[in-house]
């Protein structure tokens, strides 16, 4: 097992190298110029050129790529062209809100979606099943920003229960932290709930057809134990897989959610950096997200062995 983990961690290195090359090349050929954005509307072409030179953007691709790789190997993600702050600092400033949002969303979504999927499978073909699946379709179809605005209108403007926007660090207290995350997590979680609930239902339906479930029923096992101990455990592998895949959804959804709820997270940092062509920041964030994604996949693979003892690496 340990060898497997080490092998997988080492395998992330070539993956990250390919990602780095791909991102750098893509940004190199993408239209737009940070020097023009910095120079502002009234800059002359000469001003733009001088800023481009001062930023080193006039140098050949290979030299710039080589320098960047060298920095990365030394643990330095570079400096933002716009803010003049280290990219690592910018990401560090923004990572807590994003991680908090993703964690709360994940917990909220799993707690709601898994029981929903189990109940839908149990009551398959009934109005309960249909209502849950209709909710799932709705959750998947309505854009995050629409859900966000509706929630803000009802719970912040009309009822005045929760804040409209912003983020309060965990260090300021648990309730202020959670209070700022409830609406964003519900908005972001709506898609995620729909996805997990549908997969849970499908996986449970398959398991519930198995002979050993019939045997368990014949032995007189209670419905709750039957569903949540025997069936759910056997259906867990595809559910965990989809939760893992869904983290990519969360990363994408966080961009919109952070914008709607004015949360200063990594998602908004990404959008701002792209619009400004802040190359070092974009590169740093993409590398980080790639690493997180590889890591999540590794954790999911390892979880398989816990959930299904027959799986061994």
């Amino acid at each position, binding site marked *: 097992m340990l060898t497997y983990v080490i092998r997988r961690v080492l395998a992330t290195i070539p993956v990250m190298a390919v990602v780095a090359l791909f991102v750098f090349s893509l940004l190199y050929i993408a*239209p*737009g*110029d*940070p*020097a*023009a*954005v*910095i*120079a*502002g*509307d*009234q*800059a*002359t*072409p000469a*001003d*733009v050129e*001088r*800023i481009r*030179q*001062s930023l080193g953007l006039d140098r050949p691709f290979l030299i710039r790529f080589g320098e960047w790789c060298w920095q990365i190997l030394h643990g330095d993600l570079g400096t*933002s062209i*716009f*803010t*003049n*702050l280290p990219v690592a600092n*910018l990401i560090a*400033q*923004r990572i807590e809100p994003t991680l908090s949002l993703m964690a709360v969303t994940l917990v909220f979504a799993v707690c709601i979606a898994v029981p929903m999927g189990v109940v839908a499978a149990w009551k398959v073909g009934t109005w309960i099943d249909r209502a849950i699946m209709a909710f799932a379709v709705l959750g998947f179809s309505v854009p995050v920003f629409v859900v966000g*605005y509706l929630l*803000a*209108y009802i719970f*912040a*403007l009309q009822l*005045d229960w929760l*804040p*409209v*926007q*912003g983020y309060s660090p965990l260090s*300021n*207290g*648990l*309730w*202020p932290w959670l209070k700022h995350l409830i609406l964003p997590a519900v908005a972001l979680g709506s898609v995620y709930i729909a996805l997990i609930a549908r997969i849970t239902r499908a996986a449970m339906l398959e398991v519930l057809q198995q002979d050993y479930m019939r045997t368990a029923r014949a032995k007189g096992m209670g419905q709750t134990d039957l569903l949540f101990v025997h069936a759910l455990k056997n259906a867990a592998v595809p559910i965990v897989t989809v939760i893992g895949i869904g983290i990519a959804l969360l990363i994408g959804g966080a961009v919109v959610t952070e*914008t*709607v*709820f*004015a949360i*200063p997270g990594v998602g*908004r*940092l990404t959008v*701002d950096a792209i*619009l*400004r*062509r802040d190359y070092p920041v974009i590169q740093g964030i993409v590398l980080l997200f790639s690493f997180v994604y590889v890591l999540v996949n590794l954790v999911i693979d390892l979880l398989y062995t816990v959930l299904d003892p027959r799986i061994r690496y």
Partner: protein
Amino acid sequence: MDRRTFLKSAAGAGTLTAVGGLSTPAISQRVTARVLRFVPQADLANFDPIWGTQYVVRNAAAMVWDTLYGFDENLAPRRQMVEAEEVSTDGLTWTFRLRSGLKFHDGEPVLAKDAVASLNRWAARDTLGLMIKALQDELVAVDDRTFRWVLKKPFPKMLLALGKNSTPVCFIMPARIAATDPFRQIGEYIGSGPMRFVRDEWVPGGRAVFERFTDYIPRQEPSSWLAGGKQMQVDRIEWIIMPDAGTASAALQNGEIDWWENPITDVVPLLRKSRNVMVDIADPLGNIGVFRMNHLYPPFSDVRARRAILTAMSQEDYMRALVGDDTTLWKPLPGFFTPGTPLYTEEGGEILQGPRNLDAARKLLAQSGYAGQPVTCLIGQDQPITKPQGDITVDLLKRLGMNVDFAAIDWGTVGARRAVKTPPGQGGWQMFHTWFAGADCNATHFGIRANGDKAWFGWPDVPEVEAQVAAWFEAKTLDEEKAATRRLNKAALESVVYAPTGFFLQYQAWRKNVTGIVKGPLPFFWGVSKTV
């Protein structure tokens, strides 16, 4: 109350206290009233007002750095850090004396050498600064409070240059910081103004924080825009970045923010219904919509093609697309200068007035030799001001029978591509859209200059326009300035240096417990107070 109920209540209260859920005591509510929460027009992504000339940087910098002179509400430069100035009878030597007791935020005194270094850095990036530099014989500190600027030729607009609010503004920084290459960003934010920038709390894209600088010595006269006594009524100003207008609108109604710099027109009716919110015009000098044609390549290298566009275009169409049907927010603009300013003129504006004549425009186009070649129109899709203007232009060009190459790109790409001088089809372009702040639109404005290669993107080369710009610079009285401006407006419209699409206003909104907000080209925070 029985023992069990009491214990439950006590435990509940304890938990609430632990998680910060109890309402704040009165003393901290009073503290809250010293904090003003403001939503700016854009993110403060950098904080060097010379290196980055975005308005949002200028607006924040105006709190942190003071200026030698400042524009007042009559657009006249008034002394700010300067106590007195003296100009020699030949107009060649300017001697300035700083006020006593001025301090930087690190406690060091503001000296003449700091002013000299700051002027040098500013002059390397500013249009007027470059003009003064070109005439400069020497710029030296005479003593701690006095510096002298000696010129080879008189420059009557010296105080205007030092006090103007268009970017880059001549802010005064410590000499060691001002020594930074003007094309590189400063890394230290030691100011000379009434508010201190709290670097540790700066989260680009999230928020920026400013705290009152207690050693700042304001002038004694009342404040007026960038001039006068900059008396701060709050201890702390938090800029909260909100890219989404719906969120900012809800946050203002909910009392989570106090002042929103530029609410979009769509949400204004909603804000007006809120009993705790005030809405008013932000800047009476407003903005001017603009599109520029490339003077280097056909068809717009021929003045008849450029005049064809002006003959056909309807400024009302542009303004309705941009601002909506509220006619109090916009007006047609047959010229380049801002309505409500002393130099406003409509001289030569007939081409933009009266019924639009598409037939005449088509004839002019044919005379220019246009034969259906593609016209590359750069349209920034992510800017609420450029997109509707671009859509109207594309429709206009099609109605004129032109072959439009619609380049729907983001603003960052427009910024890069408009600097490309190669022919359209090889990366170049024929049209792009933007807008100018009305407060900036005078004869010094970069957009109206027509000095060929040195001109702004589009590179018009019209000696008559340049002659009138020079005449304005040399004007000694307001009447002379007005006469020069009239001639300039006429010449620039005849040659179509650029196409104005109209004059429009924008709103600002604030909570009713905030007072002292004035209308102006930037948010002025001095004099603004907030009650609980």
